[in-house]
């Protein structure tokens, strides 16, 4: 949990979201500093993915406030229309956030290089030369410089996920969100993806990871959020959560994972 007196870089306050009659997020609040890596864990259906998707407005929250880097968007309730003004604000917020999905969401009709240059060229109107130079630098960073001309079908799952990270980084986000980035991968390919996230952490990237990789969560996270039934049950330092969970529900959940 943030203990500094500075305003947190990311602040989520009283976020609520329901799908029909199902309440998916109930009054979720947390904050994080710039450069933190936070893992969100919890059983499937606990709302952790929805929380992540709310952070870049792939889901529109019913109520609550999200602020990232000083830009804030709040909504009083589902009755308040998500109007154009809010839409524009959401787009601004989204532009500070990169996202990597669980399913390999690379664009199959484009090469790895084109996957990465598309958004800079279309959204930021970067020149092809510049976009490609930056893309090549990013590919080198994730160890895929030799795969630029390949199509996604020709990549392993780990390579595809690293390319997806490079694609998100190409928009120069201040925050990276990962929605179970390794769940769809062969166990042998998990580490190469986690390594990239480790590297980014060292460079000071702010990252939020929804994951089932407890080993990674424990070793890499500055702190961990445990969720159940749409609520944050516990926010703790990584080691403390694993060794000394404060809440009985956290204890029950962690029982399933060998230390």
């Amino acid at each position, binding site marked *: 949990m943030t203990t500094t007196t500075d305003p947190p870089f990311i602040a989520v306050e009283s976020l609520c979201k329901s799908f029909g009659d199902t309440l998916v997020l109930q009054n979720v609040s947390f904050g994080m500093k710039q450069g933190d890596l936070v893992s969100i864990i919890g059983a499937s259906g606990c709302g952790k993915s929805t929380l992540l998707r709310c952070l870049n407005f792939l889901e529109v929250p019913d109520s609550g406030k999200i602020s990232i880097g000083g830009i804030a968007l709040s909504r009083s309730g589902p009755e308040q229309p998500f109007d154009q003004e809010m839409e524009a604000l959401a*787009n601004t917020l989204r*532009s500070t956030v*990169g996202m990597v999905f669980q*399913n390999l*969401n690379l664009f199959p009709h484009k*090469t790895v290089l084109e996957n990465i240059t*598309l958004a800079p060229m279309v*959204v930021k109107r970067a020149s092809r030369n510049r976009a490609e130079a930056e893309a090549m630098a990013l590919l080198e960073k994730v160890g895929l410089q030799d795969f630029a*001309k390949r*199509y996604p079908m020709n990549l392993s799952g780990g390579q595809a996920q690293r390319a997806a990270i490079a694609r998100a980084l190409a928009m120069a986000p201040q925050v990276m969100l990962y929605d179970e980035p390794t769940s769809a991968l062969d166990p042998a390919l998990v580490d190469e993806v986690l390594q990239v996230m480790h590297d980014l952490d060292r460079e000071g990237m702010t990252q939020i990871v929804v994951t089932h990789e407890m080993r990674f969560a424990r070793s890499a996270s500055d702190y961990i959020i445990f969720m159940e039934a749409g609520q944050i049950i516990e926010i703790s330092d990584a080691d403390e959560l694993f060794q000394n969970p404060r809440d009985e529900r956290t204890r029950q959940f962690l029982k399933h994972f060998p230390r």
Partner: protein
Amino acid sequence: MWRIQPAWRKPLRCFGIKPEALLTAFVALAALISSVPRATSAEPAPLTWGADATSGAPYVFDNPANPALVIGFETDIIEAVARRLHRPSRFVQNRWDNLIPGLERGLYDVAIDGIEITPEHQAVVDFSIPYYTTFEQLVVRKETPGVTTLDDLAGLKVGTLKATLAQRILDKAGTMKVFTYDEQLNVYADLQNGRLDAVLLDAPIALYYATPYPDLRFVGDPIALIRYGIAVPKGRTDLLSQIDAALADIRDSGELRGILERWKLWNPLMAAELNDSRPSHAQPTEFNAFMAATALKLGWRAVLERYLGFLPLIGRGALITLGLSILSMALAIALGLLLALARVYAPRPFSSLAAGYIEVMRGTPLLIQILFVYYGLPNIGLKLDPFVAGVLALGFNYAAYEAENYRAGLQAVPRGQMEAAIALNLTRVQSLRYVIVPQAIRIVLPTMTNDFISLLKDSSLVSVITMVELTQTYLQLSTTYYDYFGTGLMVAAVYLVMGLPFVRLARWTERRFEVDMHPGGARRRGAVPFLRKGITP
């Protein structure tokens, strides 16, 4: 009279190049076609006359010796009329069934094509004084004994053409088995080969189409009385009286008799009517020329020459078919894509509107849509050129099928693709343009090729709105020459040749896209050289 009905094919679906480019081309072409300058010179406006050149000899038909010319005894008569009105004449092709609606719609000044002066017809159009009187002729095989009247036909198989006076007469008698045909050629062929025992049809048809069969015999007295007149729109009394005066002059000057004798149509009824019992002296030159040109047995050289003579006509028909199909397909693609996007991505009122459009267009016959656009829309002040009407009707119809095809394609693209694009800060429109639609196109391409090929064939339906495209050209040629076989093969080959490039193009793009998205699959097909080249920057 007779009618020819091409077998309507069931409406089907379609192809993809850059929709914007094609749409632009379409708009430009449509503008070009509708802006063709109307005659503005000092020369008097031509007397336009509607007829169906596929309806056969001796009325109005393509000259067997030179298929680019329309001839017939009625062609001679109407040209004589135009000369007396000091106006040039211009022929307008229309299907026989539609001659009278076309007249009401103002497609031409008059219609002349064996149109009988009957109370039913007189209810909708005015008729000139009759220019020809004839009767129904009974024809049997030579060995058939004792048939001279309708009563002798009891229990026999009798053939005639659909929706003709002869059919009404036979149905009224009700004692024989009546078989109705679309095509006069087939009736006499079936009589010759024993499928029928007798045929009852207008005497001129019998003369031109039964005479070539050596085993057939004309029997009995004239049955019923048929008078042909020139049809004029109701209310055009000035035009009608001019035509009547011209016809009277043609009749009284002996020119009418001359025309009829050249076509071997001078008969006792006419002699009585014109009070002219002089023996016939002129040679039936036109009749003889027709018999010679259409003689069933021809040397291979003559046959070849004849087919070579067809080429310009078939080429013109093919161009119209191709132009019509490409433009309608372009329209169908552009509109179909809009409809599909509206259906899948647009908010409520728009998506329902798109769905409604698709249901209506798919649920009603293409033929009716074509007729509606051409003959129906003028009622609300929208008069379209036949080509434009054809493109619009075909395009609007196929757009519905394309929309459904594209909708399936769009929905086959995983939802995550849209989310990934949005997460990269692309707008919804950008996501569609760069991510979703390019993937959907790869999915829908094979179906689009199919659709284009069926559109190529469905475009023959526009023959109902006076367009002489490839199928109509086939009908005109085959009815003129009694030759469904050779002409059919030629026309079929042209359709095939027109479709092939698109099939090949589609195969190529398909393979190329497959290489892009699934290189493993391409290697299995041994298309490796394509692989490197196929990658686009």
